[in-house]
């Protein structure tokens, strides 16, 4: 048996060498891949083409072909410095590390930057002002993770706000979505009595559908089209919500998934304003407009992790998104995990096609029984893993993952609160949640259109948060800070260059906010811009995509990150994937880390 395996390996190695010297195969690289991506690879010493050539196998195949029948792994008994090394200290890496350590494994987590959190960090971008650099949506961590990891006793504290959304509209009017459904109904009736009466039914019905989505997010996706026993056991997760829905509603729920959020809302509402206000948050983390198929799924996705039964959470971690990551890190340490920052992993060491540890940029080598990658697919497979051990088609498919970030952040240090024309001076609490500049569905869709031609929106959709209204500790006494997510700002610009366009972007955001709060520019003390290019360079998010690959239908469930690899296991033995690139995708939920840890522990038995 061992002999046979050795022979097999030799043969494979011979094949790979043959292939490497063989005639160059035609490449599938889309020309739309950014120069940056290719340049980065070349700087790393090898172009994608070379990487593909180095790989095993023959020309173009489906990624899953390579994933055929692997013998079940057993991690038990492998000798190494650590049981597991987690590469990357983003939230999912931390959650995975915490769960593994909690199960008694000796875990080391390595973070490239000086702080942990990845995209969930709080940074003093302007002295005295602590911003949640990339996202303020820290309120959607599932209660199960909070209790499993006992995050409460590690300093995690959520602060809630109401309304969830405050949407100023042209003409000093506004629409607010409150936690109290009846209160929202009253608000909506200003725009359409019919919509007001549809709203409670909409909330109830979608809330039911979300039970199914929550089940989906907590499970390991099946490896379709085949269904193993493991997969069927996983499907039990869905049994309860599906029973709750009933057959008829189940069909309806499935029908909703591939729809566009615009079509879904058209079925319930008539007012373009109401539809725009509900739809905006669904496209916040996706590079598509509300009329594009698959966006309805994002509505339910956000909904299913909401803290209040509505389509968005209305709470934030005290101390910003970074405080949440820090709490998870503290929990992991309390379970015995080691966390080291300022430690950049240069490569994942593979021996005989099996992951065996990591090598740091400093040259230090650390051996481990298994390696968990909490970084994106591109970094993992085009930079860290030796292409010699990868199938060439697989490398090619990694190159084809759709990122295309379209989000930028602008942070402001404010002398005082700007006065929105739609807000009376004594009602500042209206501004404590999301202030959403997306006054209609048409506005949202029009904001998206320029992206298709490589320009940024001249009338952007803005998601503005002033966290100091509920968490004054983030700014000096009496001052405020404001963070703006601006969409759509494509990573791929045809004319401008992000190295210069940051300034333009800041001006655009300021003038857009000023349309609703005329004194805004006078309130600004200082500002910082984070462009999609910065997101890539500083936070290592390919093409500035916060979710490690777009949350589109073709990168969903068993297709995430790639078909055949949705079960958190990489094509290299003892290498696991736990980042947002894996199911269920991006957002501060930690579910990717939790699900991955569960799969890893299965292999440990």
């Amino acid at each position, binding site marked *: 048996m061992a002999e046979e395996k050795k022979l097999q390996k030799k043969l494979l190695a011979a094949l790979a060498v043959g292939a490497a010297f063989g005639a160059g195969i035609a490449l*599938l690289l*889309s020309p739309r891949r950014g120069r940056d991506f290719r340049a980065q690879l070349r700087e790393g010493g090898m172009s994608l083409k070379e990487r593909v050539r180095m790989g095993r196998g023959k020309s173009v195949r*489906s990624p*899953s072909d390579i994933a055929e029948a692997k013998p079940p792994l057993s991690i038990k008994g492998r000798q190494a410095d650590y049981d597991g090394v987690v590469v990357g200290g983003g939230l999912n890496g931390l959650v995975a590390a915490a769960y593994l350590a909690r199960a008694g494994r000796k875990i080391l987590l390595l973070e490239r930057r000086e702080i942990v959190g990845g995209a969930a960090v709080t940074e003093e971008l302007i002295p005295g002002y602590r911003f949640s650099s990339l996202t303020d949506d820290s309120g959607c961590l599932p209660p199960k993770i909070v209790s499993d990891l006992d995050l409460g006793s590690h300093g995690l504290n959520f602060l809630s706000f109401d309304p969830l959304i405050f949407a100023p509209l042209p003409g000093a009017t506004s629409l607010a979505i409150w936690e109290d459904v009846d209160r929202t109904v009253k608000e909506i009736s200003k725009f359409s009595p019919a919509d007001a009466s549809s709203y409670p039914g909409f909330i109830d019905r979608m809330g039911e559908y979300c039970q199914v989505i929550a089940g989906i997010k907590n499970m390991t996706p099946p490896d379709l089209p085949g269904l193993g026993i493991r997969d069927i056991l996983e499907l039990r997760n869905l049994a309860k919500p599906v029973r709750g829905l009933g057959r*008829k509603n189940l069909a309806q729920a499935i029908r909703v*998934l*591939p729809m566009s959020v615009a079509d879904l809302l058209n079925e319930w509402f008539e007012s373009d304003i109401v539809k725009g206000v509900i739809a905006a948050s669904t496209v916040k983390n996706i590079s*598509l407009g509300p009329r594009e198929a698959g966006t309805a799924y994002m509505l339910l996705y956000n909904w299913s992790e909401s803290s209040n039964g509505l389509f968005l959470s209305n709470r934030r971690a005290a101390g910003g998104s970074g405080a949440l990551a820090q709490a998870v890190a503290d929990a992991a340490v309390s379970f015995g995990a080691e966390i080291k920052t300022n430690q950049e992993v240069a490569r994942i060491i593979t021996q005989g096609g099996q992951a065996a540890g990591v090598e740091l940029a400093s040259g230090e080598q650390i051996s481990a029984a298994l390696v968990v990658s909490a970084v994106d697919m591109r970094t993992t497979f085009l930079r860290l893993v030796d292409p010699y051990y990868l199938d060439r088609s697989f490398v090619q498919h990694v190159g*084809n993952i759709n990122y295309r970030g379209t989000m930028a952040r602008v942070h402001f240090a404010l002398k005082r609160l700007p006065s929105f024309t739609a807000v009376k001076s004594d009602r500042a609490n209206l501004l404590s949640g999301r202030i959403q500049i997306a006054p209609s569905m048409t506005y949202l869709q029009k904001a998206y259109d320029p992206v298709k031609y490589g320009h940024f929106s001249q009338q952007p959709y803005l998601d503005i948060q002033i966290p100091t209204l509920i968490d004054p500790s983030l700014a000096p006494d009496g001052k405020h800070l404001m963070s703006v997510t601006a969409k759509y700002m494509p990573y791929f610009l045809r004319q401008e260059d992000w190295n210069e366009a940051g300034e333009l972007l800041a001006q655009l955001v300021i003038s857009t906010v000023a349309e609703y709060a005329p004194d805004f520019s006078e309130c600004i003390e200082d500002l910082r811009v984070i462009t999609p290019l910065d997101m890539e360079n500083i936070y290592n998010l390919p093409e500035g995509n916060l979710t490690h690959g777009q949350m589109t239908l073709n990168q969903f469930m068993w297709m995430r990150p790639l078909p055949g690899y949705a079960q958190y296991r990489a094509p290299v033995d003892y290498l696991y994937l736990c980042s947002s690139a894996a199911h269920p995708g991006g957002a501060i939920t930690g579910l990717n880390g939790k699900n991955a840890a569960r799969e890893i522990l299965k292999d440990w038995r």
Partner: protein
Amino acid sequence: MTNLSETNLYDAIVIGGGHNGLTAAAYLARAGRKVLVLERRYLLGGAAVTEEIFPGFKYTVCSYVISLLRPEVIQELELYKHGLHLLPTDGSFIPMEDGNYLASYADEARTIEEIRRHSHRDADQYHEFGNMMYDIAYAVKPILGMVAPDLTSPGITGLNALRHLGVHLKSLGKKKFHWLTKIMTMSAYDFVGEWFETDVLKAYLCTSGIIGTMLGIKSPGTAYVLLHHFMGELDGAFSAWGSQKGGTGGVSEAIASAARFYGAEIRCNAPVAQVIVRNGQACGVALEDGEEIYATTIISGCDPKVTFRSLVDEKDLPSDLVRAIDNFKFRGSSGKVNLALDGLPEFPAMKDKSLIQNTLFIAPSTDYMEKAYDDAKYDDFSKRPFLECVIPTTTDPSMAPPGKHVMSIFVQYASYNMPLHGSRDEQREAFGNAVIDTMSEFAPNIKDLILHKQVLTPWDMEDQFSITEGNIFHGELTLDQLFIFRPVPGWTRYRTPIRNYYQCGSGTHPGGGITGGPGRLAALEIMKDGN
């Protein structure tokens, strides 16, 4: 309860003499049923008709290519015996804005050589792309010939259908299954972009992803529509497009002739006003002139809106079905311009003059295509629309007087909801002018050749062919309106909540195009019920 008049009693009445209605009628008659087809207009075919609107010139008024007609329909109804005569089209010609062009040919090797002029890499990829599409098309084909399972009530038959589907998907193997899931979910642009770099080639390949759909080439879901069209099957050869000798109406005529051969009775100028429902059971139809005709089974070949919201009373339907039908997306997106020409238009980009026989595409770049959509999605028509044209007289001179030609231009996009600037007539004129102006950018002499033009907006299609919002597919082919969701979950199996009332139009699985698929599957289901 009155006794039904015996002389009026049929086994089945088909409402609407479109090609699916005729197909269903032919299948039922072939099985020995006594069938009556009632058509509102003076001629048969629905959207698949040929009309002589301008003396001497035969316009293929609406549908213009026959590629999707299902081979089992051709065989089982022996359509060749009944006048089906398909002329293959040789390929395509796509002029570009810089004076260059792209052409495709029936002969793949020639196409590859042509693509090589633009990109070596793409030329090398083309064959493999074709193979992949062929594989997926074969994987989907059995699904199109399958009655969609009913997710809402998986009884024995439902479970069996689900099992069939599962077995089929599993049999595909992982590779094809994953290609399939990809093509179901991606945009045509991204899907094609994984293979090719030449912009005009991408634009050309994407065109079939948007036909009949109010979506752009960059909208997710359009890759499926691309596949839907790729499955065009002509004499067993995938994706070879063709046209009927004498115009598309000939296909409808052939099916009608088969139906008559099997004993079906067909009446034109017989608009149905209402389905007669008694005790929750359909038992006949009332014509607009008041005549009532009774039958055991009533089958609607109309679109879901007409079938459920105009032919029957709301009170006979469950409220959730009514709501679902009201939410069903039609959104007509296309128009049609038919021209009678004094001679052949000249394209400066066309070096080889014989290319004029090909299908001509005004789809010079992906940006052009996407911008055409952007105009229309805010409820207007495209200022510079995507055009797909054939000049059938180049292969079939009988359609016009000697030396003259007819040109059939399919136009996208035109929104059904476009606002009225002036009257409908003025709007139609403006729309027609946008088409001719765009055409003359690529064929400057066309304006001088026009003897007569017929312009159809989505409104006209709705009025003339009774297709809601002018959607040529009886409802958009988006993921949430396909297969187990077409037309609405729970009523996918050609039945309706009203006993003995059935649907067989393009609004049912497998959807639009001149396929005959819905008509055939509906007839088979009806016979299963013993009707």
